[in-house]
């Protein structure tokens, strides 16, 4: 139970702050005495948080499926020839700045949520793919050799040995990807997606530091919550599959 203590605490703080931001008005008033409105009120923070999270979760789910499937494919005998190609494609996805992906995606997909989801998927692929490859390649060849030699089918070797053994490394890749994308998703506000980036953009346009701060604090807190959630997940995975190392 102690495993889930810190993610729960951070989650409570995140939701609490999203609902009760107006309570902090005196603080922001003191920071920004020259503005009439110091708490962002165009949308509720809770709605923005929810939307932000949905964007990240949808793109992470699609990205994880693509990257894990790609990583598995590239480490099978039939796909081994594609290993360098798969690596390159993922690296290109990473070198594209998200803003450039948006600029290219908007003409094709229009304004709103769709282009940012595409950008997030592309951007999040590499860490997951790289870790999937590292996790699968890191398994002792003797283990898979013995498993096949004892009569396991390729699918059984994958499900019973490779994925449980590589799982923790793959989870770490998803963790990096999701954490990066929580920050990147905020850019979506520039093309009409409703995210926690809205108050930041509005604050920058109006010279209102309080707005910027409110958006930034919530984005940061969301990233922290997610990160500690994954930390707990990785620990739980380790306990399940490699109990002798669990601490």
């Amino acid at each position, binding site marked *: 139970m102690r495993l889930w203590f810190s993610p729960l605490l951070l989650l409570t703080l995140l939701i609490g702050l999203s609902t009760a931001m107006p309570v902090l008005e005196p603080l922001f008033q003191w920071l920004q005495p020259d503005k009439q409105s110091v708490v962002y009120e165009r949308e509720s923070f809770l709605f923005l948080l929810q939307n932000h999270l949905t964007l990240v979760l949808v793109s992470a789910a699609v990205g994880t499926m693509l990257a894990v499937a790609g990583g598995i494919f590239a480490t099978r005998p039939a796909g081994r020839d594609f290993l360098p190609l798969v690596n390159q494609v993922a690296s290109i996805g990473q070198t594209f700045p998200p803003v450039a992906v948006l600029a290219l995606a908007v003409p094709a997909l229009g304004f709103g949520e769709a282009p940012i989801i595409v950008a997030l998927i592309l951007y999040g692929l590499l860490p997951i793919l790289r870790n999937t490859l590292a996790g699968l390649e890191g398994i002792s060849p003797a283990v898979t050799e013995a498993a096949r030699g*004892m009569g396991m089918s390729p699918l059984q070797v994958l499900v019973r040995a490779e994925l449980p*053994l590589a799982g923790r490394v793959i989870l770490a890749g998803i963790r990096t990807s999701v954490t990066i994308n929580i920050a990147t998703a905020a850019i979506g506000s520039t093309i009409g997606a409703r995210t926690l980036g809205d108050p930041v953009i509005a604050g920058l346009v109006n010279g209102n530091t309080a707005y910027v701060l409110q958006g930034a604090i919530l984005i940061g807190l969301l990233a922290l919550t997610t990160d500690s959630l994954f930390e707990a997940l990785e620990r739980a995975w380790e306990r399940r599959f490699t109990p002798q190392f669990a601490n």
Partner: protein
Amino acid sequence: MIELKNVTRRFGKAVAVDHINLRIETGEVCVLVGSSGCGKSTTLRMINRLLPHTEGEILVDGEDITGMNPEQLRLNMGYVIQGTGLFPHWTVARNIAMVPELLKWPKERIDARVEELMTLLDLDPATHAGKYPQQLSGGQAQRVGVARALAADPNILLMDEPFGALDAITRDNLQMELLRIQKQVRKTTVFVTHDIDEALKLATRIAVMDQGRIVQHDTPENILRNPASEFVENLVGKQDRGLKLMSLRPVRQLMTAVSDAGRPDPGVESVGEDDSVRLALSVMVWQSASSVPVVNGKGEQTGVISRDRILQDGA
């Protein structure tokens, strides 16, 4: 029975195994011996189809393996490798239960079998069943590897340098253990090693391989007495042959029986009937004695073996 007929394996242009013919009878231990790169592991891995053969035919109990489902074929062949390949995320018991689980045995039958095998391999089920492979010593891990291979009682046992990474004492113990188990279970065994002493100790017949070919296939004694080529002669150690032959013969064969001799005096060194003649000679050399008493399993003297007899007929 396993038969290889004209089997060839090429990797690109390189020929790893070159038109070999080999017949391994049911219940015998065939040891493939040779230096690294001679094709012995390749040969072994073709038998369970981890590698496809390029040419020729491999028959198991008369049936061509090319037509069989590879998984079905392997489920009936225990496989032991040097690195053990135990699943690090499974307990010892679950590792041993791997093949019975794949064959969907009922749980009670699996549990009983795991316990039986752990006892057979001299691993205490109570202390070791719940451990993970990383918590075992090298020798214990390989015992688990052998137990896993025997779990579903396959007809055939394939062993690829299983004791190669172990220290000399542990290796010796496991070799004796394997001989003991083999006496009970009589598996058709193909055993790959580069260690000629291991081959001489374990084999019913040895196949010496060099550059992808089998240069001699014969009993250990014949390999020592009549090496087919200079290569085999060097492999068995030309001048060391006398002692090696002696280590193949049990004391029983050269002793003079003595009836009702009771137990030898305590403090007098004795040898067992099944110990090697080489050991008996060693005891005599060490003690500067001209003979040594021979005892049976119960410690009762059954005979005596003399130095002169060994020097005359030992090899």
